[in-house]
């Protein structure tokens, strides 16, 4: 009952593909490119932070045209406006165009149908549309760098009234960075919504015979919860985006308070009566579930890699399943911990404080289960395992630094400081990204039939691990000392001479030296990614070939397919007979018992039990 022919041409097979595996790889490659772009933006920002009075060096600025430099740099130095633009786009690109598409779009698409024994996603055409909406939205956002107004420049959080006023003094509002950001966001949200509908339907309805809910690999549970988060949390942000577009195009005042005055316009000619806080609530209603959307695919990858590389079942599988569902629900009622200083009363901010502290419990359950899974295992330090093991303490630091931020009283002191930046980057960069890298190294052999080079893998891993801690740990220190976020000169404007009585200036002076430490670490981190980029390409045609379809001797269904899996994935209809992590069973000779292996014919009673 299919409506596609079985001899598609190159374009239909690789470009406008409806196959979840190709789409997954498309998502992955596109996301990695966007991550690289976001990284570069950050490098320019870090130059400005560490060396604010020095012009951008040639090795960084060669990328820009001279005309662009004449417009956006002053004497070669990064201006505040340029810094803000890069900062806003760095956040946007990393979160919406990088990590989510890589975690959910790439791994969700590629691995989920394979792990549940499905021939493809439930709606292949919709899947294709999701990818192209993502690409178009991303290109719209990044294309705006070349507009006269430049790209969006009001933070990735895009708070009004600043974000409504920014770029408002341009005749053609459609061609401004702020507007393109909003329109691109609408595309991205639509892409995510279609993607999540697809994933949830697939998981509910296309599971193989015998794959009951509690026999699903943890990755599938994580993708299910992630999809629900995207489905239910994104629409309010879409509402906020639409309302801001109406503010920009039609001059409405959804988010404009009365009596606004700017130097460019004098009294702003708008009706007023709007609420900037409304935007913040709508934004963070998504914003908080969004961080779990970032996290869960990474935990999913780690949860698959650890059992396969310890030859032990995942410890606490049922608790992890329960925890991830509770986490998903709780993530909807914690958002205002991003808004502690907006003037909410102590009762409601205490409510959010309580739920935020509560949500650390399921997170801890997840990490602890993964950690305990290592205990007593026969650990094989393959490249994926090394990344997965690094994920645990790095994410641990990130999570623990989040605990103080949960408290409204502490939030008053730490809000908008570098401590927050340190916290969330620890979670995302050495945390989530390491988990996703682990996934890439783990499933690469299934995708391309070759292992990634181990030596290059080590060259990627060790400098990254060391450098990344030198990038983000000092931020925690600077933040507690009082350094603000989004200082384009790294605090240079506040430094006072050693004999000044200005206390704040002295504190800034004492800690500003850390800026160059961090920036140098960033340049080392940049260099450490080169082996990875090389590895991705060279392994494709020169990597060590896999010995068989299941090179890691794993137990989940994706390893029952040919390498790479063809159209329809499985050569025979798969059936599942046991749980997903049957490693080192005492009654088996081999140390793993894959889900799909039919049990040997035993006495009549047990044969019937195994059927469902």
């Amino acid at each position, binding site marked *: *009952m*299919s409506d596609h022919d079985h001899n598609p041409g190159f374009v239909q097979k690789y470009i406008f593909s409806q196959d979840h595996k190709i789409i997954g790889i498309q998502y992955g490659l596109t996301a990695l490119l966007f991550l690289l772009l976001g990284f570069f933006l950050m490098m320019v920002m870090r130059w400005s932070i560490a*060396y604010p*009075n*020095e*012009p951008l060096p040639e090795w960084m600025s060669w990328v820009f045209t*001279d*005309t662009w*430099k*004449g417009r956006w*740099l*002053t*004497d*070669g130095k990064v201006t505040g406006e340029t810094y803000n633009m890069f900062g806003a786009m760095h956040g946007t690109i990393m979160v919406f165009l990088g990590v989510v598409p890589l975690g959910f779009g790439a791994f969700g698409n590629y691995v989920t149908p394979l792990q549940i024994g499905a*021939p493809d996603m*439930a*709606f*292949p055409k919709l899947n294709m549309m999701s990818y192209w909406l993502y690409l178009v939205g991303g290109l719209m956002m990044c294309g705006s760098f070349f507009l*006269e107004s430049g790209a969006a420049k009001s933070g990735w959080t895009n708070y009004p009234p600043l974000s409504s006023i920014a770029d408002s003094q*341009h*005749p*053609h509002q459609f061609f401004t960075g702020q507007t393109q950001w909003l329109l691109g966001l609408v595309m991205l949200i639509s892409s995510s*919504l279609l993607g*999540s*509908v697809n994933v*949830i339907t697939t998981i*509910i*309805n*296309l599971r193989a015979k015998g794959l009951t809910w509690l026999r699903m690999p943890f990755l599938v549970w994580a993708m299910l919860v992630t999809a629900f988060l995207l*489905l*239910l*949390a*994104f*629409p*309010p942000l*879409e*509402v906020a985006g*639409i*309302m801001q577009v*109406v503010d920009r195009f*039609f*001059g*409405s*005042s*959804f988010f404009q308070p009365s009596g606004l005055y700017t130097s460019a*316009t*004098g009294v702003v*000619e*708008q*009706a007023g*009566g*709007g*609420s900037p806080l*409304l935007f913040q609530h*709508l934004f963070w209603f998504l914003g908080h579930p969004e961080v779990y959307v970032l996290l869960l695919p990474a935990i999913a990858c780690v949860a698959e890699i650890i059992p396969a590389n310890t030859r032990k079942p995942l410890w606490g599988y049922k608790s992890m399943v329960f925890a991830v569902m509770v986490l998903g629900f709780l993530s909807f009622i914690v958002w205002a911990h991003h808004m502690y200083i907006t003037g909410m009363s102590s009762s409601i901010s205490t409510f959010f404080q309580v739920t935020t502290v509560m949500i650390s419990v399921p997170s801890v359950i997840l990490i602890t289960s993964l950690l305990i899974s290592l205990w007593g295992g026969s650990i094989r330090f393959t490249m994926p395992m090394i990344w997965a093991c690094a994920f645990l303490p790095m994410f641990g630091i990130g999570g623990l630094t989040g605990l103080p931020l949960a408290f409204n009283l502490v939030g008053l002191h730490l809000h908008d400081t570098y401590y927050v930046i340190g916290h969330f980057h620890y979670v995302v960069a050495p945390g989530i990204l390491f988990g996703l890298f682990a996934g890439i190294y783990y499933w690469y052999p299934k995708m391309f039939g070759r292992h990634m080079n181990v030596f290059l893998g080590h060259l990627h891993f060790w400098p990254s691990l060391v450098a990344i801690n030198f990038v983000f740990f000092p931020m925690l220190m600077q933040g507690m000392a009082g350094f603000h976020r989004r200082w384009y000169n790294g605090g240079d404007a506040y*430094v*006072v001479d050693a004999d000044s009585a200005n206390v704040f200036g002295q504190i800034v002076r004492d800690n*500003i030296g850390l800026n160059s430490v961090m920036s140098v670490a960033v340049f080392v981190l940049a260099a450490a990614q080169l082996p990875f980029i090389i590895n991705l390409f060279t392994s494709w045609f020169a990597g060590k070939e896999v010995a068989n379809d299941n090179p890691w001797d794993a137990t989940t269904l994706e390893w029952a397919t040919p390498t790479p899996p063809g159209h*329809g994935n499985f050569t025979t*209809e798969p059936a599942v007979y046991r749980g997903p992590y049957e490693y080192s069973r005492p009654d088996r000779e081999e140390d793993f018992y894959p889900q799909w292996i039919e049990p040997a014919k035993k006495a009549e009673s047990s044969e019937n039990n195994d059927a469902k």
Partner: protein
Amino acid sequence: MEIPYIVNARKDTGLNNSKIAIWLFLASEVMLFGGLFSSYIFLRIYADYPWPERTLPVLPGLINTFILILSSVTVVFAWAGLKLRNWNMFVANMAITIICAAVFMVFKAKEYAGKFHHHATQTEDYGWVEGHLHYDEGDSTHGNAYVVAAKEVNFSVDSTTANYLASIIAQAGDKLSLKRDYVIREISGNTFNEKVLFEAGTALTPEVIAEAKQHFIKARTHNQELRTQLLKDAWVIARDPNKHNELVGLKDFDSKVKNTVAEVHTALVKKAENNNEFLLANGNMVFDADGAELKFNSGWGRTSDAKEGDSTNLSLLDGTVVTGTAGDSNFHYRYVDALDFRHLVMKAEAKGLHADDLIEQSPILALEGEGGDKIRKIWKTHKEWRKHLAKHLEGRKDALTGEGRKPTEIDLYRVTWHQMYAYAQLDYNITEENWMQVKDDHQPSMIYDITGMTKEHKATFPKEVEVPREKVRFDSVFSPKMNNYYAIYFTITGLHGLHVIGGAIVLGYYLFFGRKMYNSNPEWLANRVEVGGLFWHFVDLVWILVFPVFYLM
């Protein structure tokens, strides 16, 4: 292997794929419209201006509600037709559904169009007049224009927009001439040459601006490159212990280091300037305008609040600045069809001032001409009328509180066109006997919603009313700009309308192209129509909520 459960249900879940998918999608739509309605709630509760209750004509909304309910019923019967394998039943009912969708959108379009042509102006004291502006056919400013008798026009060459420039040239091209020589310094070979690119008196053309822009950008690029290099040199010099040993050992953020670098850089820049190493091309070009009258859409920029005849300047969004004498930028109302002082009253009460006194001092009641006279007469009549209303309501005890009822703010301070017409019918003489012939605005009249405003009605409105721009605080058509009520109304109904269109397209696809699928697999078509129908019902659900909330509350 093909994808299972596209048509048939899976045994344990009891569902096919599309059913799950559409309900998931509807779940996200619940969150979408939930977010919109929550915005509505909070924008309304915390509005700092009087919320326009019941200002929309009810009848179009009511008809649209009936239409959507009908289409909801027919889409169910269309699905039933497929399940019963009755092709004609399917076609007939689906056709009605789609026709209903089309009629719905027609009514919606007419509602919107009516609003976009209806104008409102708020004076400095927060009073409002509403009506229709007087403007010539083909006038793209729609009556809301800044008029300046220009002395000078200053173009910012790198941001001048083509359509703004074209408008200026079209209006006064022959009067605009370059004020001073436009001198550039450029590189040819190894030498810097100064030359006059355009002489004083050059006429304004797009090519002139474009060429100046080219040179400006080239100059800016070159100069920035030079300054960047000089800054790099300055750092090298500053770090040289032979030249600046007092800086040895200091970290770069010390003010001493920074100041030294800045000094060295300034010196190097000055040297280069004296050496004529910098290119020259002014970012601005000033043109004499010789008093040419320029008229701009007010959305194109902002102006100082000058009275007609005073000097003023007008800054357009593309950086162009027009200096000159303010022309007639007033609002010329062909007729005024509503007066509204509620916002004024709200502000007065917040300050503890007496609202009625302030109303009497409003510029609206001081407008000149016959139109102004009529406004004053109408307002006087209205004050008389509302006294009778208040007395009448006082006598009718409220069932729940036991107290007398009070007139609403709308009754007291808003005069609608129904009332203007009624007052004229009563010859502006309200008595105990005839006051009840005037309907208060609380009761929208279906009759008026059907007939609309006729010539007979308009004859009684204040005509040719001129509101001076310097007395105006805010102005808008009835668009999202007007206030957040209209903004959220247009946003929600607009988004809903897009869903109606989308749903109609999908259902139409099944109507026009479904025959083939019906012949090969009718159950599959039935499933798809069911799924489309579910979406359609959701769209109806939203409208069932929209109608009372926006039209009746």
